[in-house]
């Protein structure tokens, strides 16, 4: 008989520890997914946390917007689901979650302690300041511009346009503006500023400068994750990520197009 079919639902009162264990394991997976991890990593951390807390069997289903897990201990079992929020990228949170999972796997933490640690990580993990991010993104886009063939006189405007775009994007996301709308607004603003600045600086590669100014919007991590997920046996999640990447690109291109039209009319 299949192992899962033989499980007795926890509602029978046989194993009271299953519910918190399942939710803590799901929260670890949810936070990792929101930090930009691929499906295999999420699978791995949920199994690691659940087994570290005493689970015998762990089966996880990973969707784009939710996680569901079945946990088994002995003949008792439970299935629980958890909603997943906005999928961003947060490497330091990713790192801290793995350190926590290692501790749990070594048996150093109880379920309650793990839950407290997860709450602490979700709220206290430091992020770079908005200005540091803006400068870094500006430099990255200026370097992108050079890689694409933009001339030296356009690198300054691209740096400023992308940096301002990053500040605006962060502000919009903080205000929970839809990510696709946000991509269009930032793309329009950055491309227009980049184009105007490059024109003012006497650049001969204005179009390239406008494109370079919006490359902060390229969803690199989701696009690579999409492929990894498909290659590693999660085609549903991979396809959902790929569609999201495509829609973000379309919205970003729409903003760029509007910026180009306005700049052309300006002239």
């Amino acid at each position, binding site marked *: 008989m299949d192992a899962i079919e033989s499980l007795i639902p926890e509602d029978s009162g046989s194993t009271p520890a299953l519910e918190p264990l399942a939710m803590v394991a799901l929260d670890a997976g949810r936070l990792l997914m929101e930090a*930009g*991890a*691929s499906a295999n*990593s999420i699978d*791995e951390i949920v199994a690691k946390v659940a087994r570290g807390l005493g689970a015998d069997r762990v089966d996880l289903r990973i969707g784009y917007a939710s996680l569901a897990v079945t946990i088994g201990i002995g003949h008792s079992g439970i299935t629980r689901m958890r909603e997943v929020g906005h999928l961003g*990228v*947060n*490497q*330091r*949170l*990713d*790192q801290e979650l*793995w350190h926590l999972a*290692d501790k749990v796997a070594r048996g150093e933490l109880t379920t309650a302690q793990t839950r407290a640690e997860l709450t602490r990580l979700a709220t206290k993990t430091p*992020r*770079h300041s908005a200005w*540091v*991010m803006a400068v*870094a*993104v*500006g*430099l*990255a*886009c*200026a*370097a*992108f511009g*050079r*890689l*694409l063939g933009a001339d030296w006189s356009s690198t300054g405007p691209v740096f400023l346009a992308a940096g301002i775009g*990053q500040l605006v994007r962060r502000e919009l996301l903080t205000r929970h503006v839809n990510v696709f709308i946000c991509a269009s607004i930032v793309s329009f603003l950055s491309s227009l500023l980049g184009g105007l600045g490059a024109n003012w600086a006497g650049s001969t590669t204005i179009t*390239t400068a406008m*494109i*370079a100014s*919006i*490359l*902060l*919007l*390229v969803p*690199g*991590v989701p*696009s*690579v*994750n*999409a*492929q*990894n997920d498909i*290659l*590693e046996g999660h085609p549903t999640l991979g396809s959902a990520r790929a569609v999201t990447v495509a829609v973000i*690109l*379309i919205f*970003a*291109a*729409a903003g*760029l*197009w509007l910026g*180009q039209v306005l700049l052309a009319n300006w002239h």
Partner: protein
Amino acid sequence: MNPYFLLHQTLCGAIAAAGFGVLFNIGFRSLPWCAASGAVALAVRTYCLGLGWNLEAASFAAALTVGAAVQVLRARTDISQNALDVVGCIPMVPGSFAAKAILGMFALTSASTMDASETLITAVQYALRVTFTIGAIGTGLAIPTLLLRVRVNR
């Protein structure tokens, strides 16, 4: 190949990767690894393009090199392998081609399009190059991961 051009591309790859490392909230101490990852990716891609390879093949070779290097070095860095190799390959993601492909599609609907078939072919060419290049990068990164993956403490 012009060594100054190779150096220029390598440096730009390093700066772009480090910049995206900050965006991905990687700590300052780990940023040199990101820069190194981007530098290796762009150096390999530029060298292969100099040999006459097409963009897709050169991007595949670069991603394969970065993926393998990250697998070998992962124990020395405290960054997850996924983040380090993605950050290194970000400068190779053909975002400008994607933008040009979509803008070309937009142009097709414009009433003033002079040569619709040429616009369509150019847009499709850009779209295919984006698809194949992203496919090449993803496959290049996935192969070392799938072949060399060892479950170690992360």
